[in-house]
């Protein structure tokens, strides 16, 4: 049977050797025979206390120049001695794929298999290392089963490191260096195969579908209608999401940061003008503008300007203008009003971010997010120069972004379709006898809950125009594209909660104030 291989990864001086010294010299392991392979020689050396560990070390130079020899000598070690386990201390600056290449070598492949990868991180300097040490470190983190963190003394530090790590390896389990019992369980716990997990879940979902359907219909919940509405919204949103992630990845990969920084207007006013013109030129709905927004922020466009773009693009572009025109059968008050209000509100929302800048970074991955996309492509977009290399990165990046934003699109659409099927009656009944301000708020809340695509919300708005005053309809038409459940969900794939909350608040207040003031002065 193939021997299990356990790997400890981590940057230089992160404490890999200390970790192995502590772990492998445990008293109750003294009769487990281990082969320890070190690909790095740090300040601390590996000592075997119970003489059950045999160790060998290889230099980085060997690794690069004579990998075949390393494979051969490992094979000889394995054949000479009888081992129960293999432990590897991997080099901190060598890519993990290099280790996989060694282990999958035909000579070793049948003798041993990779079981667990543990990442050791130093909480003090992880963030600064990630910012400037290239692709090997994030690649190691992404490939690890769980992580062990050293030098974190406060719960806040631990949380921060955990957030960093799960930005690269979502859902990774993180342990403190001395939480040894949890750790041992992790090392030897049986791991579910994610692919069989996926298939099992699918089968379960199919069964659930057939069981839940009659049950829900028994409770007078129109299951069939919800499914139809869900699919309708989704089929409409997916193509636009695809356009969005392709454009956003294009910006991310092909447009160098320098070009944006040098060409983009420095002043806030010109920047916002550019944002609005850009918004007009991009015929996209909100599903597409959010990924683009994210990559603009990553590329260093000032936040107020990027926010203005994100808010304006789904309201003022030609497709939306045309669909509004049709839905309201050519009522120019609505069409012009929507465009004008869209511009006013998006500039106001952008200004809110200029006037009250927040101290925390808007991107949830912190400064890191600017350098890496967390999509499994750790090569720095700026360092790859060949076109085919960039094209490959472009494809992978757009796929990763599709999955990460799409997840929230599916959840948001699901919530919205339930709202659409059973929720609107409540809004309608709330309207009876409401004042103007309250009507505007009802319609804005409804826009938030229904999460319609901005290229199709005008028709829905039209259907409410019999019960709601025009100002409330305008609130619906302006606020909905900027913010709704679906958008908030999609934003949370890359932005911090406090940023989303602030954006929600700013755009809500701006929309309400603009609509209310204009209607108070007899605009509608």
């Amino acid at each position, binding site marked *: 049977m193939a021997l299990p291989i356990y790997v400890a990864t981590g940057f230089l001086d992160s404490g890999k050797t200390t970790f192995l010294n502590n772990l492998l010299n445990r008293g109750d392991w003294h009769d487990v025979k281990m082969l320890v392979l070190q690909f790095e020689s740090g300040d601390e050396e590996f000592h075997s206390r119970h003489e059950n560990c045999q160790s060998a070390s290889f230099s980085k130079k060997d690794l690069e120049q004579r*990998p075949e020899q390393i494979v051969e000598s490992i094979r000889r070690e394995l054949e000479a001695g009888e081992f129960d386990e293999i432990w590897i201390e991997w080099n901190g600056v060598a890519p993990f794929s290099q280790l996989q*290449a060694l*282990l*999958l*070598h035909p000579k070793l492949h049948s003798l041993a298999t*990779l079981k667990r*990868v543990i990442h050791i991180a130093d909480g003090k300097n992880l963030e600064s290392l990630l910012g400037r040490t290239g692709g090997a470190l994030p690649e190691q983190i992404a*490939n*690890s*089963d769980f992580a062990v963190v050293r030098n974190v003394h406060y719960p806040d530090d631990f949380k921060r490191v955990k957030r960093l790590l799960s930005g690269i*390896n979502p859902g990774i389990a993180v342990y403190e260096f001395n939480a040894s019992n949890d750790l041992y369980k992790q090392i030897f716990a049986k791991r579910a195969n*994610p*692919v069989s*997990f*996926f298939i099992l*879940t*699918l089968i379960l*979902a*199919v069964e659930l579908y057939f069981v839940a359907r009659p049950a829900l219909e028994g409770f*007078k*919940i*129109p299951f*069939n*209608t919800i499914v*139809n*509405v*869900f*699919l*309708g919204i989704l*089929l409409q949103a*997916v193509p636009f999401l*695809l356009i969005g992630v392709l454009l956003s990845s294009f910006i991310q990969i092909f447009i160098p940061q320098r070009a944006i920084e040098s060409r983009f207007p420095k002043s806030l006013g010109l920047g916002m003008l550019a944002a609005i013109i850009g918004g007009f030129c991009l015929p996209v709905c909100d599903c597409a503008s959010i990924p683009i927004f994210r990559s603009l922020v990553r590329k260093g466009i000032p936040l107020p300007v990027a926010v203005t773009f994100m808010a304006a693009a789904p309201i003022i572009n030609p497709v939306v203008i045309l669909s509004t025109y*049709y839905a*309201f*059968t*050519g009522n*120019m008050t609505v069409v012009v009003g929507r465009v004008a209000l869209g511009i006013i509100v998006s500039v106001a929302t952008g200004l809110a971010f200029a006037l009250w800048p927040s101290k925390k970074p808007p991107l949830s991955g912190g400064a890191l997010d600017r350098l890496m996309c967390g999509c499994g492509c750790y090569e720095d977009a700026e360092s790859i120069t060949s076109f085919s290399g960039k094209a490959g990165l472009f494809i992978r990046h757009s796929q990763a972004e*599709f*999955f*990460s934003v*799409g997840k929230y699109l599916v959840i948001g659409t699901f919530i919205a*379709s339930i709202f*659409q*099927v*059973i929720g*609107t*009656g409540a809004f*309608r*009944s709330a*309207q009876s006898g409401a004042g103007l301000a309250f009507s505007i708020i009802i319609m804005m809340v409804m826009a938030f809950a*229904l999460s319609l695509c901005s290229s*199709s919300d005008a*028709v*829905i708005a*039209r*259907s*409410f125009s*019999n*019960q709601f*005053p025009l100002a409330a309809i305008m609130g619906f038409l302006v606020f909905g594209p900027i913010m709704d459940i679906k958008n908030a969900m999609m934003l949370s794939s890359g932005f911090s909660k406090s940023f989303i909350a602030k954006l929600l608040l700013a755009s809500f207040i701006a929309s309400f104030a603009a609509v209310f003031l204009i209607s108070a002065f007899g605009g509608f």
Partner: protein
Amino acid sequence: MQARAFNPQIFLELLCFLAFAALMLFLVLSGKYLSYVTPRMEPYLWFSAIVMALWAFIGLGRLFRPQHKLRSSHCFVLAVPILLLVLPHSPLSTADLSGSLIGGSAISGLSSGASGSLNSSVSAAAAKTEAPAAVIVENADAATEAPAAEVKLSNSNASYGSTDGYANDLPGLDVQGKKITVPDDYFGAWISEICMNMNLYEGYTVVMTGFVFKDPTMLKEDEFVPARLMMSCCVADLSPAGLLCKYDKVSELEAESWVTVEGTLFIGKYEFDGQFYDDPQISVTKITPAQAIEAYSYPF
């Protein structure tokens, strides 16, 4: 040296991309996508299918790249829609929408049907049913005050291209006989056209087929709408739409039954927000039973 080992995660992604692309192709080629979205989405669905197929094709190159930490949950983004599309469900019918007569569903609500009881606001909901006569439709201002702009925009939309003011590329128009026989496939387009240019068609004889839509809370006793379910963007906005008909014997008509209506178009009045607007209506001369039409209609 580059190691090779089968990568189940890439394989799974590849399967999802392929399945999604195939489903999009199937929906477009079979026309089944029309139960969810409007014909305008067809090129976008083609686009999605092509992008997904390309992604799958390019994924082939990574199929044998080793990967220690495997993930699968992101694939649910595609698996969920694929499953729901494949698992049995029926397109929404008149009954889903109007089982308890339109309740809150004339346009967006869709609530009635199985959940009629959920509509607490019967009066409010019913008021909205005014929409079918007027949905996509009725803005009188634009039609009367800015006819020039109207025609120009219609032209730019290609499907209404008209040189003499008539939408002469919509089938069913007989200018000499002053008659419009609305073909079933052009129901929505004709409703839009008539409402946009109602002055042009005043006095025409109109023949159209729809189901009888009656609602005592908003329509008068001698009024009904021969309606079709109209989808403006996607199935979420499915709603009955049609022209309001004046007919003495409305009580003899069975609600939800399909009829072909023949009558004369006149410009009636429609009250909205305390003001009266022009509204194209039909004074019925003949009603014959008709076959139910499965398909939805689309305004443009």
